C-alpha cells in the first residue's frame, strides 16, 4: 500500500501551500497540489486548504476563493464524510463556503499578529485523534482570525459544529488574557457537526519540522495519517495535562 494522498489546494495567493505539502510529506503522506481552477481532486484521500492570502484577502478573507471551481468538489468531498482541513486562510474559506459554521472577523487589535501561542485540543476528529486535552505550541499569523459562531454565542454552535481548538496558556487554561484576537470563547478552531471538516487559525504545518525546532503540529498530521490508514485510535477520554 502506498502512502495516502492528500490534496493541497492552490488558490491564487495561497502562500503556505508548499509548507503544508512539506509537513504532509514529513508526516508520511503524499501531498498532491490541486489547482483552484480544476474541478478535480485527483483521487486524494483528504484535502488541505492552506494558509495565505487567496485573492489578496480582498473584500473579505476567503470571500472570492470559495467560488473557485475546485471548491464544488471539495464541498462534495466533505459532504461524503472525507477529511478536510482548513488552515488559517483555508479555515476562512471553509467558513465563507458554509462548510464550517461561523465567520472570522478582523482581529480586535486591528493588527496582523504573528506569534507562537498555546492551543488546547477539545475534541477528537480525524485530525486530533488521541489529542484531546493536549496543549500544543503553534504559530499564528493572521489579521482576520476573530472567530464568531453563527449565532454570536458559543452555544449557537450546538448541532452545527463543535469547538476543536482553544487558545490557552501553557497549562491549558483558556484564559481571556491569552486570547490573541478576540475570538468568542478563545475558539481557535472548529469542526463541522459530522467532525470530518476542521478549520483552525494556528498553523500546524509551521510546527512540523524537527530541523526547525518546532514539532507540536506533527501530531495533527500523524492523526490524519492514522485515520487514513484506518488505524485511528478510538476516541478515548485523554486526561488534560
Amino acid at each position: 500500500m502506498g502512502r495516502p494522498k492528500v490534496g493541497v489546494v492552490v488558490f491564487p495567493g495561497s502562500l503556505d501551500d508548499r509548507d503544508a505539502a512539506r509537513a504532509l510529506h514529513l508526516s508520511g503522506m503524499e501531498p498532491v497540489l490541486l489547482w483552484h481552477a480544476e474541478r478535480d481532486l485527483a483521487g486524494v484521500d483528504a484535502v488541505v486548504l492552506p494558509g495565505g492570502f487567496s485573492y489578496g484577502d480582498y473584500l473579505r478573507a476567503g470571500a472570492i476563493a470559495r467560488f473557485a471551481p475546485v471548491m464544488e468538489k471539495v464541498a462534495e468531498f466533505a459532504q461524503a464524510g472525507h477529511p478536510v482541513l482548513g488552515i488559517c486562510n483555508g479555515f476562512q474559506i471553509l467558513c465563507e463556503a458554509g462548510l464550517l459554521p461561523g465567520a472570522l472577523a478582523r482581529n480586535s487589535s486591528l493588527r496582523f499578529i504573528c506569534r507562537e501561542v498555546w492551543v488546547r485540543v477539545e475534541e477528537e476528529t480525524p485530525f486530533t485523534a488521541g489529542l484531546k486535552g493536549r496543549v500544543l505550541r503553534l504559530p499564528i499569523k493572521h489579521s482576520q482570525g476573530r472567530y464568531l459562531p453563527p449565532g454570536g454565542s458559543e452555544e449557537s454552535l450546538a448541532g452545527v459544529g463543535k469547538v476543536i481548538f482553544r487558545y490557552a496558556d501553557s497549562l491549558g487554561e483558556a484564559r481571556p488574557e491569552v486570547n490573541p484576537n478576540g475570538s468568542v470563547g478563545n475558539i481557535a478552531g472548529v469542526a463541522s457537526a459530522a467532525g470530518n471538516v476542521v478549520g483552525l487559525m494556528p498553523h500546524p504545518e509551521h510546527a512540523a519540522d524537527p530541523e526547525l525546532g518546532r514539532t507540536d503540529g506533527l501530531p495533527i498530521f500523524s492523526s490524519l495519517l492514522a485515520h487514513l490508514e484506518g488505524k485511528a485510535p478510538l476516541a478515548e477520554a485523554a486526561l488534560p495535562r
Partner: protein
Amino acid sequence: MRYVVHVDVLPKEGILDPQGKAVEEALPALGFSGVEKVRVGKHIVLEMDGNSAEEVLARAEEMARKFLSNPVIEEFRVRLGGAAGEGRSG
C-alpha cells in the same frame, strides 16, 4: 440603461466592531465630541446595465447577499445613486 449601484456593508448590530470602537475612542482627542455608535463597514460602488431600476436593484441585492457581504456577521443596504453618491464631498 446604465446604473450606478451603491452597496453599504456594516457589521451586524450586536457584533463587536473594533474599528468603530477605535474611531469612536479617537474622535474626542481630535476635538470631535459627542459622536456615538460609530460603525465601520465597506462601501462598494459599481456600474451595471439593466432594463429598469427594479431589475438592477434585485440583481445587486443578490450580489450583495451572496458575495459582497457575509450574512453571519454583516448586513447590507443597496441603492442606486450618482457616480460617487449624493451628499457633500471632499
